[in-house]
């Protein structure tokens, strides 16, 4: 065949691509200077060098070790002054618990001299060896329940929105625009803020937290589910449409079976994200482990903070494994 024409091999990138790449680099350069990326790199580099012992010290490494070091040893026991326990019955201690008498010297700031002064105290305490762990576990369970319901409601709101926004499900551009705007709206309000408002509407308690998580999660799922459905292989759906199947039938028998693994992954992502977000919004009074974490931090109980962080990590990790398992089964 025509061999001169055969020489036509398309060029790998055009001037447009090159221009876009240059513009992007320039943008990164300018913004990078404004947000001090250079300093970040040099500080991190120093910390890395300090970590391997090449330079004696670095601000960052010091700062890290100062705080991170305090997280250990983890705090897993509780000790409670028995005098503060209502109806305390020494004959009937909780499981594994025992009573100790401790003498403590605490420092207090004397408002007159402005000096710290030691003060000795002797108290009888009830020691529960894994009491704190049990407490954190209970809080975590509560957090998970909040996260679970936040996810359930997010799916209930987000899925219909996703249907409305997906090009291959909803053909009317007006409806799609409406659903898209609702999704943007749900995603644009930071949970922290919606939680503050919801607490006022629903009162303090888990409901406000659940709804704050659910609203944002609904926006996320609306977006992700919609994009997932648009990104599928269109041919199976086309085959059903060709036979005259309704949109419902196409959805149930061509779209959902294909999209299920992604849907599950996204829902599980919302679940585990909700769990971590509950640590933030819990602070406004929505239950869960958030207040415990914030409170312990504010009380300088870094050992407790460490325990909480480790528990969160374990739960996220286990959720991840479970999610991977589910996804693979659905794949």
């Amino acid at each position: 065949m025509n061999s001169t024409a055969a020489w036509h091999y398309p060029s790998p990138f055009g001037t447009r691509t090159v221009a876009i790449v240059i513009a992007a680099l320039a943008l990164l350069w300018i913004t990078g200077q404004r947000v001090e990326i250079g300093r970040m790199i040099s500080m991190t580099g120093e910390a890395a060098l300090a970590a391997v012992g090449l330079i004696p010290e670095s601000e960052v490494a010091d700062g890290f070790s100062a705080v991170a070091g305090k997280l250990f040893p983890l705090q897993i026991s509780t000790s409670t002054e028995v005098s503060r326990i209502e109806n305390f019955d020494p004959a009937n201690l909780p499981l594994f618990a025992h009573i100790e008498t401790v003498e403590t010297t605490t420092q207090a700031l004397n408002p007159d001299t402005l000096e710290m002064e030691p003060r000795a105290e002797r108290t009888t305490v009830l020691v529960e060896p894994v009491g704190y762990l049990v407490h954190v576990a209970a809080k975590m369970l509560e957090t998970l329940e909040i996260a679970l319901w936040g996810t359930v409601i997010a799916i209930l709101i987000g899925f219909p929105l996703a249907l409305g926004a997906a090009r291959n499900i909803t053909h009317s551009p007006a409806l799609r625009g409406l659903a898209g705007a609702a999704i943007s709206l749900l995603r644009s309000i930071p949970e922290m803020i919606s939680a503050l408002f919801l607490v006022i509407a629903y009162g303090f308690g888990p409901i406000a937290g659940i709804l704050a998580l659910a609203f944002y999660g609904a926006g996320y799922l609306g977006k992700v589910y919609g994009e997932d459905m648009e990104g599928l292989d269109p041919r199976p759906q086309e085959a059903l449409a060709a036979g005259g199947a309704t949109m419902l039938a196409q959805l149930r028998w061509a779209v959902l079976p294909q999209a299920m693994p992604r849907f599950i992954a996204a829902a599980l992502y919302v679940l585990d994200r909700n769990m971590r977000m509950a640590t933030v919004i819990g602070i406004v009074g929505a239950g869960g482990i958030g207040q415990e974490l914030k409170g312990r931090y504010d009380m300088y109980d870094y050992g407790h903070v460490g325990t909480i962080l480790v528990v969160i990590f374990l739960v996220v990790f286990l959720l991840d494994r479970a999610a991977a398992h589910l996804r693979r089964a659905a794949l």
Partner: protein
Amino acid sequence: MDAPAISFRNIGKRYPDGTRALDDVSLDVPRGQFCVLLGPSGAGKSTLLRMANRLAEPTEGRVLIEGRDLTLRTVKPIRRRIGMIHQSFNLVGRLSVASNIMTGALPALGPTRVLTGLFPETLKTKACMLAASVGLGPPHMSRRADSLSGGQQQRVGIARAFMLDPAIVLADEPVASLDPRISTDILGLIRDQARVRGATVLCSLHQIELARAFADRIVALRHGRLVFDGTPADLDRSAIRAIYGEAGPVPIASGGLAA
């Protein structure tokens, strides 16, 4: 009732990227006819077939099904009367063979059945009988469609197209991935179905022998234009050369038949 089953009127198609797939094609397929569409690769066969149920929209001309104009409003009821066999099968890979065949019956089912997947016994029986008639036995029924061999997938697609006893069958290379034995079985099946129920068949093929054996009428496209329209007997060597270009199909030319 004398409107042709399918009627293409001065159809043209230019894809958004500028490719010209069809050019002023007019063709009437009367009811009950088994019409085979021949043509070299890229001639526009799939495009033409996909216009008969508006999976592709013509950029020029119009399409009438049983005398009715195929518009956005009429497309739903018209599609229910049409069964289509897709060139790339278009199965839902993650569903079982049984479910894939059953999807062909979805347009006839109410929303509850569609949602729950609780299908009437009659349809289940029908799905199994269709599977059997394309040579897929009970052990295949609960396997995932994407674990089938190429030819097995094609056969699932064929069974699916017949679930609702279509009045019109659009078949895009239905036997490309099948061995000669099953190919003839299946084309025979399609022809019998059509004869018994008075259904119309428009079927693209690459195998000239099969076209000759089964077609009532043969039409051919080349570079998006209709270049042949006649009976199987009219399809002589010079016609074949006009369709496929100078050299003509080699297996015949180089003595393939003589072996």
